C-alpha cells in the first residue's frame, strides 16, 4: 500500500491497520518514520517544501513496495510520503514491512527507504536565514 499526500499521517494507526491486514500471517512488523530536521548542511531550516512528479511518484513507490514484497517474502508493505509545505519535526515519510520473521522486516524497511531516496521523484526546497534553496542530492 502506497500513498502520497499533503496531510499528516498517524504511524500508530498505520501499524495497527497493517497488523490487521496480516491476519495472523506475519510474525514481525518493522517500520521507519522520517522527520523534518531543523538544520541541514550547517544552516537553520525553518520550513521545507516537497515537490513531486504526480503519477510517476506513485508508479515508483508501487514498484519499490512490490519489489520488497517479492525479495523479502513480505505479507504486506506500506510506503507513505508527504508533499507540500512542512515544518521542522513534522513527519515526512513512513515505511513499514510485515513478514514471517524480523530479519526480513528490518531489511525490507531499509531497502524501501534507501531506494525511495534515490529513485522516487521528490525534491526538497528549504527556507533558511539566507533564503530558499533546493536541497542537493546526497545531503538529505
Amino acid at each position, binding site marked *: 500500500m502506497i500513498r502520497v499526500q499533503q496531510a499528516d499521517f498517524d504511524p500508530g494507526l498505520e501499524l495497527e491497520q497493517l497488523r490487521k491486514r496480516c491476519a495472523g500471517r506475519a510474525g514481525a512488523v518493522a517500520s521507519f518514520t*522520517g522527520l523534518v530536521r531543523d538544520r541541514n548542511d550547517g544552516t537553520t531550516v525553518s520550513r521545507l517544501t*516537497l*515537490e*513531486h*512528479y504526480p*503519477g*510517476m511518484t506513485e*508508479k515508483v513507490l508501487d514498484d519499490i513496495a512490490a519489489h520488497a514484497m517479492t525479495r523479502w517474502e513480505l505479507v504486506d508493505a506500506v510506503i507513505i*510520503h508527504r508533499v507540500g509545505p512542512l515544518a521542522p519535526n513534522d513527519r*515526512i*515519510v513512513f515505511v513499514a514491512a510485515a513478514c514471517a520473521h524480523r530479519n526480513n522486516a528490518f531489511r525490507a524497511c531499509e531497502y524501501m*527507504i534507501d531506494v*525511495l*531516496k*534515490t*529513485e*522516487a*521523484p*521528490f*525534491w*526538497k*526546497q528549504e527556507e533558511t536565514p539566507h533564503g530558499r534553496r*533546493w*536541497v*542537493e*542530492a*546526497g*545531503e*538529505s
Partner: protein
Amino acid sequence: MVQLRYFASLREALGIGEEQLALPDNITTVAQLSAWLQTRGTDWQQALGDPRLHTAINQAVVRPDARIHDGDEIAWFPPVTGG
C-alpha cells in the same frame, strides 16, 4: 505533439513547468530534443545542459539515447531528494 515537463530547480531556472509542442521530424531521441531546446537561449542551454539531470519518458527514467514518439510525456528533473 509531445508534452514536456520540468521539475524543481530546473522548473525555476526555465520559468516554465510544462508545455506542449510539435516534434520536429529530425528529432528522434531525448538527447536530440534536449539539444534542440537548448537553442532557445542561454538560460535553456545552462539549465538543460546540466549533466546531472535525469530524463523520463511516460514517467519511466530513460537514457539520453531513448527514442521519443508522438504523444509521449517527456520530463527532465534534477537528482531526487525525497525521504
